[in-house]
């Protein structure tokens, strides 16, 4: 069983596969340039002291982004 949720709502240590990236323009470009594209597995590895930004692990590296940037990314959670 699986379900799609917004990246912002993921808990720390939760894993999932990106299904859609809805942002465009400068932000969308940055997100994609860094490898956040559909089909990639991501894991939330931490949140900053004030809960924002969030740190993600993509296959081989760690990435940060703000919650309002994570809003446009939808993730399929395994065993949700």
């Amino acid at each position, binding site marked *: 069983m699986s379900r799609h949720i917004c990246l912002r709502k993921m808990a720390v240590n939760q894993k999932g596969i990106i299904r859609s990236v809805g942002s465009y323009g400068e932000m969308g470009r*940055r*997100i994609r340039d860094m*490898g956040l594209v559909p089909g990639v597995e991501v894991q939330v590895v931490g949140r900053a002291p004030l809960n924002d*930004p969030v740190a993600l692990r993509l*296959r081989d590296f*760690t990435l940060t982004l703000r919650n309002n940037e994570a809003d446009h990314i939808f993730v399929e959670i395994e065993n949700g």
Partner: protein
Amino acid sequence: MDSTKKTITIALSGNPNAGKTTLFNILTGSRQHVGNYPGITVEKKEGFVETSGHMLHFVDLPGTYSLTAYSQEELVARNYMIQEGPDLVVDVVNASSLERNLYLAVQILELGAPLILALNMMDEVRKKGITLNTELLEQRMDCRVVETVARQGKGKQELIDTIIEMSEQTEAFKSPLKISYGPDLDPVIEEMTAIIESSSFLTDTYPARWIALKYLEMDEEILAEGRKKSKDISEKIEQAVHDVADHCLKTLKTYPEAVIADYRYGFISSLLKDVVSRDEQRQRIEMSDHMDKFLTHRLLGPLFMVFVLYMVYTLTFLVGDVPLGLIEDFFGWLGNNVRAVMPDGLLQSLIASGIIDGVGAVLSFVPLLMIIFFCIAFLEDSGYMARVAYMLDRVFRYFGLHGCSIMPFIVSGGIAGGCAVPGIMAARTLRSPREKLATILTAPFMTCGAKLPVFLLLAAIFFPANQALALFLITVLAWASALLVSKLLRSTIIRGPATPFVMELPPYRLPTMRGLLIHTWERTWQYIKKAGTIILAISIIIWAAMTFPQLPEERLAYYESLSMKVESIDQGFEDDLYIGPGAGHEISFEEQVEFSLAEEQLAYSYAGRIGTFLEPVTKWAGFDWRINISLVGGFAAKEVIISTLGTAYSLGAVDEDDPSSLAGRIEQDPDWDAKRAISLIIFVLLYAPCFVAVVAIARESGSWKWACFAMVFNTVFAFAFSTVVYQTLKVFI
């Protein structure tokens, strides 16, 4: 350099944190040259390597993730590869995250640039239990691949050999890589390519298919260039893009540029099939993740960060104080010697007070700068700086700044006693132009070391019981002003959306000493070279303003006659002169004559006239002409405020570390009271940055416009603030 040798130009490109600069340092050693690209502050590094028969000219391009060009760095990297046409491009990739790193490599191949792939950090790859089939990758990418470990200097020779080998077979020119972008985009790309080719639209510079892709990606640079070249053709292509974008949005709910990125990554995963194999057993949680559990922990993380920042600060100003003092002593000694050797007069004054003091002021910053640059280089190269930005971003974003703005603020005097010059230069760590500008413009509000003596003096006189509290409140006021003004700027003249915070947290690494030293030296040298020349010119101008015009003959003759009578002191003359309270030391009549002459000379000079001229305005903030002159002098350097006040009160040289004679004079002066002191403190804290800082602002923002803005805006802001406070206090006290 041997000019008969064939020169090969090699551009080094690659992602940030891929070890590109380390490789560049290893390749070129000490023979490198740092400058800025014309008109912008993006660093340009070049270096030469001589081999038998060849001269290799390496250009280190700014680190980029992609060639889609939004930031200045990306634009520089792309334009260099296209317009300067290097003989070869070496793309340095972090082999332990190949997938993302190849995104740039694929785009370079699409440009048709001759590429060598340097798989760097192969040691880390092996440690992680990953094996790479380099031959297979070489075959699939159709370009040469070299394995390197830049930190240990491994692979350097192979890379140089490959470069020479490839440069000798340039006739085998490869056509740009063609990737399929799927059934929706491929036909449109073909159609657009045909139009572009048939009309030779921009094709002398770019490959046709690449132009089509850039149109689909809505690349502003290329769109603007296209419109300039031919409005008709550009419109035709834009129409095609518009149609297909519409189609994508309706059928796929996506944008062409997203489709392009997806297919590029798809292409990369097919390239990497069987190239990368992992030993799943060894897929362990990495060291960096363990460290982050502590270093970015909700509570411990910020505490540790405060500790680190405090240590950087302490180290800089504690260790830097010694060489700073030595250099100041040296220039003091040099100035005194010049005064002793040269006959009295304008030339002596120009060389001793104008040039030596001015250059001395600039050079005495150098040890501080070197230490702060070293610390910053360490924090950056180790990967910790990215964590600091990550932890603080939420707070700073509210004020239109970026997590990385903390360092410039702290160094500028966020903990009282810093210096805005290295602070402004520390803002280089900010990649986003709007946040960087806001940081640079507000960092000078902090309580730098040169403003401190003024605050300490006034606090000691007017708030003797609460000196520490006063200083604390001043520091709080500095922070509040910096943050609020930055919020104001970011919602008015530097308006614009926050730059995305999509940022890599690189794994922690121990920086190499060589890299740290090179970083430190190149930044320091840039400061000495560029700032030095302008500052020398300005210090001569300020000297002139405080020296000219000279007193008229009869006044000089009057003082001359006074000096003549020194031997037979006549009480009658003392009435003409103000004898200061002396504060513990007697001054001779002779000295008093000299000080009075200095006071009158200063009052008569342009700076003095400006001071008097401004009095009707500045009286609203409670300042008289004497304070005005010292504030005008403070434009040069805030240290000058106390010494100029001393001259204006005809006290002779006042030691800024022990201004007790001045304190006594101010204490007894009925014009001085707490409201004037508070008003002056606010003004000194907030008004125009000193000229060394102004030059730094001009350099780092890339424009004198912002430097002038900082001078005018800060002064007006400070004056308005002081006036309001002074007038309010007047009502209540």
